[in-house]
């Protein structure tokens, strides 16, 4: 995944296909490199963890491993909504740690050519922090925001994570 993202940055390096998992949040479509995703599971019982940032929903038991769960809606300051039967937890490996992300719906795995990835527009209307956008994919009918979760958990963020209390 590291390689895929670096390639994204060097534009002239086109032609290679990468696979993305696309998912929805508040009717917008996002994509994430398939190599980062470990598994996609349905909602489970989440145990709240006190004194954490608001977007940390809690922890779950993933077959004997306890992993933190992040609500991407809350993280991106989108409107909170109830979980339904389409709600999924995407378990990903971010900076060496497993983490779950709650999304509205996971739709499909798409293949795109790296050439199709455009740099993110300078201003984004939704609350997504600019830095965790790796790019935008503009296909005929759809617009996909490519996320870089490693950036989302920059050093700063991680410190905040543990000292927020």
């Amino acid at each position, binding site marked *: 995944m590291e390689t895929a993202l670096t390639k994204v940055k060097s534009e002239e390096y086109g032609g290679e296909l990468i696979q993305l998992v696309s998912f929805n949040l508040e009717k917008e479509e996002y994509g994430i490199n398939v190599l980062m995703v470990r598994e996609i599971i349905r909602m489970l019982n989440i145990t709240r*963890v*006190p*004194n954490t940032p608001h977007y940390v929903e809690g922890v779950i*038991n993933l077959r*004997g*491993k306890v*992993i933190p769960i992040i609500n991407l809606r809350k993280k991106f300051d989108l409107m909170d909504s109830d979980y339904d039967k389409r709600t999924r937890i995407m378990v990903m490996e971010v900076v060496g740690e497993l983490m779950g992300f709650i999304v509205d719906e996971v739709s499909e795995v798409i293949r795109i050519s790296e050439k199709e990835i455009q740099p993110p527009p300078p201003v984004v209307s939704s609350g997504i922090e600019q830095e965790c956008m790796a790019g935008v994919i503009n296909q005929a009918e759809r617009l996909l925001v490519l996320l870089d979760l490693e950036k989302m958990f920059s050093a700063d963020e*991680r410190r905040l994570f543990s000292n927020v209390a």
Partner: protein
Amino acid sequence: MAIDCEDQELLDGFLAETTELLEKLDDDLISLEKSPEDADLMNRIFRSIHTVKGASSFLGFDMLVKVTHKTEDVLNRLRKLELTLTPEIMDVILEAVDLVKTLVADIKGGDIIERDLEGTIGKLIPFLSENAVEATVLAPVFAPKEEKAAAPAETPAPAAEPEPTAAAQAAQPAPQEPKAEAKAEPAASQQVAPAPQPKPQPVKEPQKAPAKGGGDDLADNSTVRVDVKRLDDLMNQVGELVLERNRMIQLHSDYQTGLNPAEFGDDFGKLSKRLNFVTSELQMQVLKMRMLPVEKVFKKFPRIVRNLARDLGKEVDLVIYGEETELDRSVVDEIGDPLIHLIRNALDHGLETPEQRLAAGKERNGTVVLSAAHEGNQIVISIKDNGRGIDPDKIAKKALDKGLVTDEQVAAMGTREILDLIFLPGFSTKEQTTDLSGRGVGMDVVRTNIRKLNGIIEIKNEVGHGSEFILKLPLTLAIIQSLLVEVEKEVYSIPLASVIETMRVSKKEFHMIGGQEVLKLRDSVLPLLRLQQTFGCNEVYTDRDTCYVVIVGVAEKRIGLIVTRLLGQQEVAIKSLGKFLSNLPGIGGSTIMGDGRVALIVDPIGLVGGAA
């Protein structure tokens, strides 16, 4: 300088064996001082040091050979009764053993550092000087063996380990190989002995050995030696487990095909009982493999006590009980330092000098009793001395002088609280800082380490008759007994090791003192902490007027946690929360409940620290 040893396996074997021998050696030497006539003991010591020498010369560790060789010579004279063992000789021998340890540690670390050997060797030499001829009579007996061992290493030596040889050649006008000297020495140790002297060795922290000696022995924790029998037992248990699994699969398929639906419940009940039995057995076995006898820590204390007693001019008998008590490796690693501090305190502050003791009508020798025992799911380690005890008034006065507490605070304290003052960082009763004590660090270390282990410290004190420090530690850190509590519909688990008692209290009994909710409990005042507030849980039950208080103790502190209700006791396996959530105050980890949900484990240390 890295060690260029071709046969890594050989080197590993050497290190393992040498470390073991050296550990034993310390012990034996102290015993020898007590009973110098014990020939068996003497021979054992001699053999140990000889083995170390032989092995190191085979592998070409010249510095080791030199030190062990001289030590061996002195021991040999002792063995042949040409010398009588005095504390001074023992001091030097122990110093030499320390030096050997340092050298071995260097080799283990992968770097051979040039160390000052001459200081120690120089101290050994005087004991060889009288009747040197007689001393060498026995030498040929072991010399040939020595030569044989050294021979294979001889030829490749210059290529294999260039650093000591090169250093020697550069420094010495006569390019004589250290190894050659080592061999020549048994024949005429006295004459050759001065030869290494001109070698200008860079003096790098020559006195490092004693300081390091303490914690080093346990550092080697990457491999475990397990009794074959235990391994067999384990295999047996796993076999049982596989059997039970097969039964379970069978049961399930029977159920699905509709055979005997009536008996399913019954069979399933039996199966889960057996499964429960097998897994708990298995758990015990695995835990046992992680266990080490506390002897691992205790065995260095005779040595420490001896040295300290000599330095302090006190006469001390150290009595050790229960060194076979086993506890988890992780715990063993952590208790070494606190125990050293406590023992040091007992000797330095607790015990009086022989004159003072006689004047007080006690026997001349002070006694320190170090004991370990299992007590339920805890291990209890106690350090007890029959010295002068701790004088609370003196403690209070000192703490006031140092500005650690205020007059009002002292006035409000009971004896217990005053004694607890000794754990404050910066507290010391010593007027002058010595190299032994007086910086006010020791007890703080004790407290920090014991807290880390979720342990409890108790002090029993009788002015004039001595004091006793009792450490209560959990047996293991991986699986703990815990008390499950409910806080406004959320389940939390509190390590049972820190729970002292639980009680049901009416909310009317809470009082406020200076913004802090407290509970009067018998003769003490207990600060309270509402877990609901600390953990920011939504309040669900507003109409209740009673609740439960779980009194937890961390090191010497006590605090009451207010919870909604108690759910029961359970053995839980601790799971880490991962690095993102590792520093949460008051949360020590998590565990998975029977229903697959995650319950958080309360960290009493964090809570007590936050409330105090």
